[in-house]
């Protein structure tokens, strides 16, 4: 990923090569332009836009500072180009390379009017209505610049933590009400306290960045857009529990995120003090997002789930006490220490405190990252933020919380977004906050089959209900879809076995999408010869 500061120094030469000088900025007045280097922006053509801007600036003899920031999370507006002006940052998007000469002609370097102009970025309603904490700097800062991170308020949490006793840091996390953002929603403070209370010569901090749930990308956005926030959170965790070594386990499907983290580490200097962090790449196994399988993988083994106990907090990586948290959990910590646990706890509803970065995905018009306090309804997200389906057809089903999450019908769209309200529905959860929308062309029997198929592909094989049950599940659903509806009872029984008998969430939660599809969309399981 080209997340680098490119200084375009044009002195009006008429050469065909790009007059690019790479390196630190010069002391001349230059307009700063932001073109995201985030993977989603790249997939939508951001590199071509950045190159076109450099070429056009050179042609016009204009000196620019081009920053490859993260994404603001308004994915439907990517590539979203921003210009720093005295009025603040002005946004233009979605920009394609062919728009660039026209943008220059319209005076966009001074925030000039253009059909693609969206006004000041911070005033775009979709963004202004959010309350970003963990994601507050994504898209704002230059992800490769520690100086920029500090200038935008980063580092304050770690500075405070260094003046605190370990138990006081753990107390702050406990009082904030922060719960694990990976999906299990376990109270973070309890985990931290357990690791702190377990004596050992060596302890570890492990960041679970194996963001395998379809419909989720907040971890990826954070790694690519504000990696120092994660590193700060891990360093604070290290101080809190007495660990000096951290690992970030990133899925291999995210090569750009791996590069961004390594670049941030290379530029970290003494920001982290004695705390060391290493990035480790996964290898395409969904179940490695389960914490004990992840630890096995980090140890260089097959990513097979361990039986618990012992808890990783007591005997984790290489048998040592290990604090393993999801990335968003760790990235929430700097803010909690910098602004106080009470400020975090004040947000949210019920036992779900603080904010959750929701991710709108699938067939949705305005897809992207929405970080808001718990308490909105699913409908708020789907329509007030998402604008309904991308296809223009009615939304028929929404899967919340990844491949192990329930398919919800429109009648459940008014459910409040908090952990307990969602757990009350079909045993579903909010998971990692991924929300995948489907329009009325979806076939829920096919989605149920996919849930079983995915489990069959990804099962680690250690326990029988998951390994065999998923394959039998595919077969049974195939028979139902072929018209043998007597098999529905068998499917329900199979799901019961998987739920009760599986070792981890892979096998025990695969029935959730299957049974929710069956319950809410029975017509899709009717006589339907394919």
């Amino acid at each position, binding site marked *: 990923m080209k997340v680098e500061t490119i200084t375009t120094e044009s002195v009006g030469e008429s050469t065909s090569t790009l007059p690019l000088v790479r390196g630190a900025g010069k002391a001349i007045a230059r307009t700063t332009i932001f073109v995201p280097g985030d993977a989603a922006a790249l997939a939508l053509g951001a590199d071509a836009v950045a190159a076109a801007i450099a070429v056009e600036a050179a042609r016009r003899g204009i000196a620019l500072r081009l920053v490859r920031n993260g994404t603001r999370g308004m994915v439907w507006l990517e590539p979203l180009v921003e210009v720093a002006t005295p009025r603040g940052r002005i946004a233009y998007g979605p920009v394609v390379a062919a728009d660039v000469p026209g943008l220059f002609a319209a005076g966009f370097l001074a925030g000039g009017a253009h059909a693609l102009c969206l006004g000041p970025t911070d005033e775009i309603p979709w963004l202004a209505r959010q309350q970003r904490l963990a994601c507050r700097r994504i898209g704002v800062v230059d992800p490769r610049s520690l100086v920029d991170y500090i200038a935008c308020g980063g580092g304050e949490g770690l500075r405070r933590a260094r003046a605190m006793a370990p138990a006081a840091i753990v107390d702050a996390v406990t009082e904030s009400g922060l719960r694990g953002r990976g999906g299990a929603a376990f109270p973070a403070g309890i985990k931290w306290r357990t690791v702190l209370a377990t004596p050992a010569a060596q302890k570890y901090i492990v960041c679970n960045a194996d963001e395998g749930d379809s*419909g*989720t990308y907040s971890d990826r956005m954070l790694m690519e857009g504000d990696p120092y926030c994660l590193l700060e959170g891990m360093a604070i965790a290290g101080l809190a529990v007495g660990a000096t070594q951290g690992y970030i386990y990133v899925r291999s499907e995210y090569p750009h995120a791996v590069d961004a983290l390594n670049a941030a580490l290379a530029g970290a200097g003494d920001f982290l003090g004695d705390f060391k962090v290493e990035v480790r790449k996964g290898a395409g196994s969904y179940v490695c997002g389960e914490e004990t399988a992840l630890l096995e993988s980090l140890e260089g083994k097959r990513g097979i789930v361990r039986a618990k106990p012992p808890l990783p907090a007591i005997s984790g990586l290489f048998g040592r006490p290990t604090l393993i948290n999801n990335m968003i959990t760790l990235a929430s910590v700097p803010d909690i220490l910098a602004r106080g646990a009470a400020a975090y706890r004040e947000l949210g509803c019920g036992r779900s405190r603080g904010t959750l970065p929701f991710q709108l995905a699938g067939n949705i018009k305005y897809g992207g990252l929405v970080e808001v306090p718990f308490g909105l309804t699913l409908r708020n997200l789907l329509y007030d933020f998402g604008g309904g389906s991308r296809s223009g057809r009615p939304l028929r089903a929404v899967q919340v919380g990844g491949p192990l999450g329930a398919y919800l019908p429109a009648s459940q769209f008014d459910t409040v977004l908090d952990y307990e309200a969602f757990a009350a529905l079909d045993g579903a959860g909010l998971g990692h906050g991924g929300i995948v929308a489907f329009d009325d062309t979806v076939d829920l029997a096919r989605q149920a089959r996919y849930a079983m198929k995915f489990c069959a592909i990804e099962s680690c094989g250690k326990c029988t209900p998951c390994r065999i049950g998923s394959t039998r599940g595919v077969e049974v659903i195939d028979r139902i879809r072929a018209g043998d509806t007597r098999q529905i009872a068998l499917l329900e029984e199979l799901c019961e076995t998987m739920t009760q008998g599986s070792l981890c969430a892979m096998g025990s939660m695969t029935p959730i999408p299957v049974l929710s599809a069956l319950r809410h969309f029975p017509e899709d399981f009717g006589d339907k010869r394919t």
Partner: protein
Amino acid sequence: MESLVTVASIIEAHRLRPGALLPILHGIQDALGFIPPEAVPLIARDLNLSRAEIHGVISYYAHFRQTPPGRHVVRVCCAEACQAVGGQALAEHARTRLAGSELSFEPVYCLGLCACGPALQIDETTLHAQVTPEKFDALLAALEAAA
């Protein structure tokens, strides 16, 4: 064999790291495009593991290949968010178009491009969003023209 010299140097670079096996396997695949069978005994010897254990790890993870890939590897997302916007049709189209070609098709379960699907990745470097079968054909033509 030249590739075994590469393998040996990668093993040497990582062998003392805790949990060295995955970094070694990634290093070999990144350098050679796959993990040749001849590499297995070398890794086993240097990590003091059995060949069966090494094979077990390589074959467990979808990312690792034991045979050389095509000239380019095209990974098409087959997960739910992309399914919701035509991902299955794209994957079928891609699989058919790439069958018997010099390029490899691989299904992938989420690239984190879930708000702009269907998505695909070429050679772990290039990403494409909102890919239709027509756009896929244009990408394919560009890859073939660049040969």
